[in-house]
């Protein structure tokens, strides 16, 4: 059952539920703007205590496309929060105005707290460093949509697997499926945290940690690239060295299967060569575009617009 439910962590969902979201999202891709006002007269409150343009806008667009309307703020400055109103009071106020609250907050656990206070569903649009469930849904949807399945695939994650929220949330999500193998390729200093390693070992996911992408490239179905940030390295020379060895270039992909897809949560800097953009491997721009139909599907399910 989706109706009225909170969306705090991807782990709260079963595989069957995620697949249901995918099937509805596929239908949503075909719905033009305001063609089907499934959520007419419904109101979404966007509570962005921390700014995030893409996430906020794609929720707004999703709601508009379903015929609903949007209230809220995109930055805590300028709201009564800046004047000292506490989170609970803000949530109570939004709860009385809106049919669903989409929340982004710097502090881990903020969305869960809001969900306990609000009677309407709360969707976590990112809190702390681990949870961003709708991003994980979009990532999985892109794989499912482009390759037809998630089970049996060899999926590699590269880049910063330690501090990046995107990598953590897709990893949690993958434990719901049965990929052939998940390869975690990163420099030693950016390997997943111990907490994540323990979690993965406790799951049934077949995963492998390594530092060399070249060794596995020919077997990959999905290459999920994240950004390596300079600030993570005390020594700039070390950063330059690492950066070069994790750069995705056409030469590397020339050894990949024809059907391999490259994903990235965007924006990318130079971790993917710009010559890759125009190749059939590149699905990251498409991945960004799937944000709206996936969020439409989730909103429609939570608010009873579809069953």
């Amino acid at each position, binding site marked *: 059952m989706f109706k009225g439910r909170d969306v705090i962590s991807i782990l709260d969902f079963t595989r069957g539920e995620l697949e249901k979201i995918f099937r509805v999202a596929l239908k949503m891709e075909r719905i033009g703007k305001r063609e089907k006002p499934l959520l007419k007269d419904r109101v979404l409150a966007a509570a962005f205590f921390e700014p995030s*343009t893409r996430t906020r806008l794609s929720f707004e667009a999703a709601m508009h496309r379903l015929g609903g309307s949007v209230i809220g703020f995109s*930055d805590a400055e300028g709201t009564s929060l800046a004047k000292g109103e506490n989170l609970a009071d803000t949530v109570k106020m939004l709860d009385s105005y809106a049919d669903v609250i989409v929340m982004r907050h710097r502090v881990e656990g903020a969305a869960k707290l809001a969900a306990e206070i609000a009677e309407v569903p709360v969707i976590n649009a990112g809190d702390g460093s681990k949870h961003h469930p709708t991003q994980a849904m979009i990532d999985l949807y892109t794989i499912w949509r482009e390759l037809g399945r998630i089970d049996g695939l060899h999926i590699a994650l590269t880049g910063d697997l330690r501090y990046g929220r995107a990598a953590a949330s897709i990893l949690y999500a993958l434990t719901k499926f049965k990929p052939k193998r998940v390869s975690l390729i990163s420099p030693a200093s950016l390997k997943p945290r111990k907490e994540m390693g323990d979690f993965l070992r406790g799951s049934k996911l077949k995963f492998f940690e390594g530092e060399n992408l070249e060794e596995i490239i020919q077997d990959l179905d999905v290459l999920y690239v994240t950004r390596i940030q300079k600030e993570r390295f005390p020594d700039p020379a070390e950063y330059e060295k690492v950066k070069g060895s994790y750069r995705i270039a056409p030469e590397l992909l020339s050894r990949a299967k024809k059907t391999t897809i490259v994903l990235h949560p965007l924006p990318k800097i130079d971790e993917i060569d*710009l010559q890759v*953009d*125009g190749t059939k491997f590149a699905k990251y721009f498409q991945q*960004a575009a799937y944000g709206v139909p996936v969020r439409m599907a989730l909103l429609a399910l939570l608010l009873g617009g579809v069953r």
Partner: protein
Amino acid sequence: MRSIVKGKLFTSKGILDGSILIEDGRITRVARDIQEQVDRVLDYRKKGHIVLPGLVDMHVHMRDFELSYKEDFYTGTGAAAMGGFTVVADMPNTKPKVNKLAVLRERERVAKSKALVDYGLYYGVPDREDDIVDGIEALAIGFKVFMQHEFYTDKRELTEKVLEFASWKKMLVVAHAENPKFFVKTQMGTAGTPEAEASAIKDITGLASSYGFQPHVTHLSSAAGAREFLKWKKQARITADTCPYYLLLSDDDARLQGAIAKVHPPLKSSADAEFLLKKLKDGGIDAISSDHAPHSLEEKANLESALPGFPGLETTLPILLTMVNKGLLGIEDIARACATNPSKNLGLNMIGAIEEGKIGNLTIVDLHRRAKIDPKTFVSKAKYSPFEGREVEGMAVATIVRGQPVMLDGEVVTQGGWGENVKTYG
């Protein structure tokens, strides 16, 4: 409304004698000869006349709002009609700026009430993140990024949000590409150099690859800029336009003409002009825009403080056709750079070619009509030009927008308000 236009038609199969049937604004038939009862027949089966797909100018400043003393939508689109342009895309650096949804809506209302030809509206980088909102894409055709103020400054973060939004909405991003790090002091004030252009082109291409938007570099002015652009064009999806004065005028003209010829980016050397012309001809540079930038004459008085830019809509086509007559360009270069490519760049598949199913926008030119450029006769409120006094051969004799003649034989023949936002093309 049903009309037939007859003449030498510029089509993808070459120049053919034929007729075009336009019904309710759309081309419904293109054939050797069409004999039907219609409301109007425009017969241009005359020597030297060619029927081109309607010309499109990707870069104009219609001003209006509080800057109506410089130009407004009626005079600006009137100038477009006189110059043979059926669609103009209007820049957002107005007063107030078109960078809030409410202002964009007001812009649409004003444009709709006054315009003679069809128009696109660009949205500018806002001052607050809250002004990047769902709904911009319903009225705006793309974004304009003025990199020296909006990227190489503390506005960069906000600009990147605009770029992210543009990627996601699949909207065009038009960049004025100059990096102020390479600006120099001149008699005309601070001015861009070829390095400034090349550096900014490199940066906008990198950003396009980061976010996935479609970049367009407007008013390429230097060989170095063009080379940098062409280098990236080989591996990435990027387009560019240049303006007639960058092909024909140089810093010598700038010195001679002073404030009138002051423009931003500034005129470069004649070697730069030659290179740009070569690259326009071989298709490397995609399009030509006028950067129609009217100011009052008082604002063009003093060299150092003069505002950059001058009107261009009424000189662009006569100047280009004169180049055709001199053998410097082919008529196909004009059709490509002023109609087909700008339509494509703006994502308007419904225009840019004379084909069944397309919108009935046409520009009819007489290749041999002669005149002298006389700014006093401009419909634009800005009555000066760096091309003043030039002998030209060739000009538009009819501008047809969605089947409706807007200019015939040098006269505006429609009421303001006929023009529509190109977003209505579907």
